[in-house]
């Protein structure tokens, strides 16, 4: 997707990202939030999460300005309650089915569990994307998610069926379809995002990665992870008025090795208390190694009309551990 027109205002310049957070600061912020979470038996969790996100966004700089997270604990608390209720209901019904049903139809319980999780995941992704984008801004301009739930369900239905039929071989194409749907619906002012990766390429990365990881007794794992990272980031394109810009991640296997081994050591030797430090290390590594080959007019982004979107599915995605944004 090389640029063919001459840009009117700016030539293609790499705009770098920078992460300015410090481990000691995040630790100081998360610690009292942990205390409150424990004291309130977990109820405070959404507020704690909002504070962490606010910090991480505020310390992420692009083209000299910081990102901002506008979500609040109160909003996320509503979502949290729904999430806990929904997941609780699913677990409750599953257990009830296992207890009530006679031996020969116990598989109904398993079936119910998989079906309901399958129904919840697209909703969780959709809800989280809508919420997170609407609450993220840069220079006062908010992001926006324009996708709809029906398309997400269609992608999941097709993806799950084909993955089952092909005994898992279709999974990379399924993942790319989800990514294309998510990225293709992110708007930032008049900037449109898209994802240009292909399932075949992802399949190749997974195939090579798993083979070599086995052959090298795990050492290749870090190079495998960095290739995955590059696949997911370098295929993101930004389009504004017909002009395209491209994200680029400069991560390496060696860098991933240092990052992940360091993080595991930090977390293990501090009994988990050093998690904020590991978070900062990851953010620094990922953000500082990202560049945008930029053809964008960053001065004239226009705000879309504000909308009111609840945090309904934010925490469902959290409980199901769908790390998307």
């Amino acid at each position, binding site marked *: 997707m090389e640029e063919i027109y001459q840009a009117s205002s700016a030539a293609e310049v790499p705009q770098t990202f920078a992460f300015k957070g410090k481990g000691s*600061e995040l630790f100081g912020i998360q610690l*009292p939030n942990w205390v409150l979470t*424990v004291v309130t038996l977990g109820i405070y969790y959404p507020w704690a999460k909002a504070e962490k996100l606010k910090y991480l966004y505020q310390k992420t700089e692009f083209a000299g300005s910081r990102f*901002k997270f506008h979500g609040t604990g109160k909003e996320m608390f509503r979502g949290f309650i729904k999430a806990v209720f929904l997941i609780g209901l699913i677990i409750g019904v599953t257990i009830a089915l296992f*207890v009530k049903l006679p031996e020969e139809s116990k598989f109904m319980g398993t079936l119910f569990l998989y079906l309901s999780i399958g129904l919840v995941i697209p909703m969780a992704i959709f809800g989280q994307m809508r919420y997170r984008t609407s609450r993220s801004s840069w220079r*006062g*301009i908010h992001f926006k998610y324009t996708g709809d739930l029906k398309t997400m369900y269609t992608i999941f239905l097709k993806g799950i069926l084909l993955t089952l039929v092909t005994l898992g071989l279709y999974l990379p194409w399924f993942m790319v379809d989800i990514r294309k749907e998510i990225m293709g619906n992110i708007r930032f002012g008049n900037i449109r995002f898209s994802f240009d990766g292909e399932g075949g390429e992802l399949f190749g990365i997974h195939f090579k990665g798993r083979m070599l990881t086995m052959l090298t007794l795990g050492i290749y794992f870090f190079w495998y992870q960095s290739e995955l990272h590059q696949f997911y980031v370098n295929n993101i394109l930004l389009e504004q008025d017909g002009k395209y810009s491209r994200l680029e991640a400069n991560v390496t296997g060696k860098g991933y090795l240092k990052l992940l081994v360091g993080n595991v050591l930090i977390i293990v030797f501090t009994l988990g208390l050093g998690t904020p430090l590991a978070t900062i290390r990851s953010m620094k590594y990922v953000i500082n190694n990202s560049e945008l080959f930029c053809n964008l007019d960053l*001065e004239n982004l226009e*705000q879309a009309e504000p909308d009111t979107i609840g945090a309904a599915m934010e925490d469902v995605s959290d*409980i199901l551990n769908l790390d998307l944004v």
Partner: protein
Amino acid sequence: MAVFEGLYFNGKTSAGLPVSVELLPTEFRLTTRTDADFLRIWDTNLIGRNDFNDAELVELQYAASPPEYLEVKDPAFFGALKMHYPKAAFAGSRYGSLISGNPLPLLSVLAVFVLLVAGAYFWLIPKTAEVIAENLPVSAEAKLGQALIDGMLEAEEKDSVKTMYAQRFFNLLHASPQSGKVSVTVVKHRQANAFAVPGGHIVVYEPIIHLTDSYEEFAGLIAHENAHLQHRHSLKALFRNLSSYFLVSLLFGDLNGIMVVVAENANSLKSLEYNRELEKEADMTGLALLEQKHIDPNGMVGLFSALKDEKENIDLPEFLSTHPVLDSRINYLKAKIASRKFRVQQNDSLQYYWQKLKEKSIE
């Protein structure tokens, strides 16, 4: 008052307008050189809270419609805000003392946190689990127990003749009308083991019967397991495992493992290690039952001695054979027996059923 240079964003476009920011007691005055008509007055009460600004860049949000923003990169601005508006939420940070670099406040919060987690783990969770276990309706316990025992015995081979004798042994030992129905099952197995399952089930792995040298020892075993049931110990331990996991996952933000633990617990019930208090409680209640039925209480001591001595010859689950407290259990049982007068009476029926249980199985 002080004047700083910054960029103003109107919330409609991303174009930053270079402005001079004049800090007045109750307002910010924003003006620009390029447009003499431009003037924005920011009421300091409507400026949003400081979301982790630093000296390198201060970004403020103003509650207009749409919200407006101000970016100031002058390193002195951060300090100036604190100086001029010491009480304002946009100047200070609620985490100020924790991120200032002074370790003392941080360490005290850390100490509070560690204490809280330890308190929750060692006191609150066991206590809560106990309360839940004690108040769970009998019908719910019975259903849960039935599901657990069905799952457990599915893969096991039941010895139906010995199950019958063991059930009769139990009924004679524990013929009290108010206690709920308890089912005893003898299972053919490699290991020597016995355990209580919620809802009134005792499972005996056959080899443990051969470890007993008298009906009194077997009575001790059954009385002990029955006491676990009476006190709902396995239910308590189950809830405790679950809630400990819940706490850990809450702290590390990983809630999706709960289901795994539910599944694991169903199967690990047979090797569940109750804590010392619960074991002691079961021993004492069991001993009281032996006393009530005039059975020689030394049977229980004999059982533990046999468990201790036999670990080389027989396959015992690890928690039984390496139980570090077997010695102390033998000691407190001996002390208890010495402290009381037990009236012992030979019980021929129990003797008969125990002999039947010891016989080689008829396949």
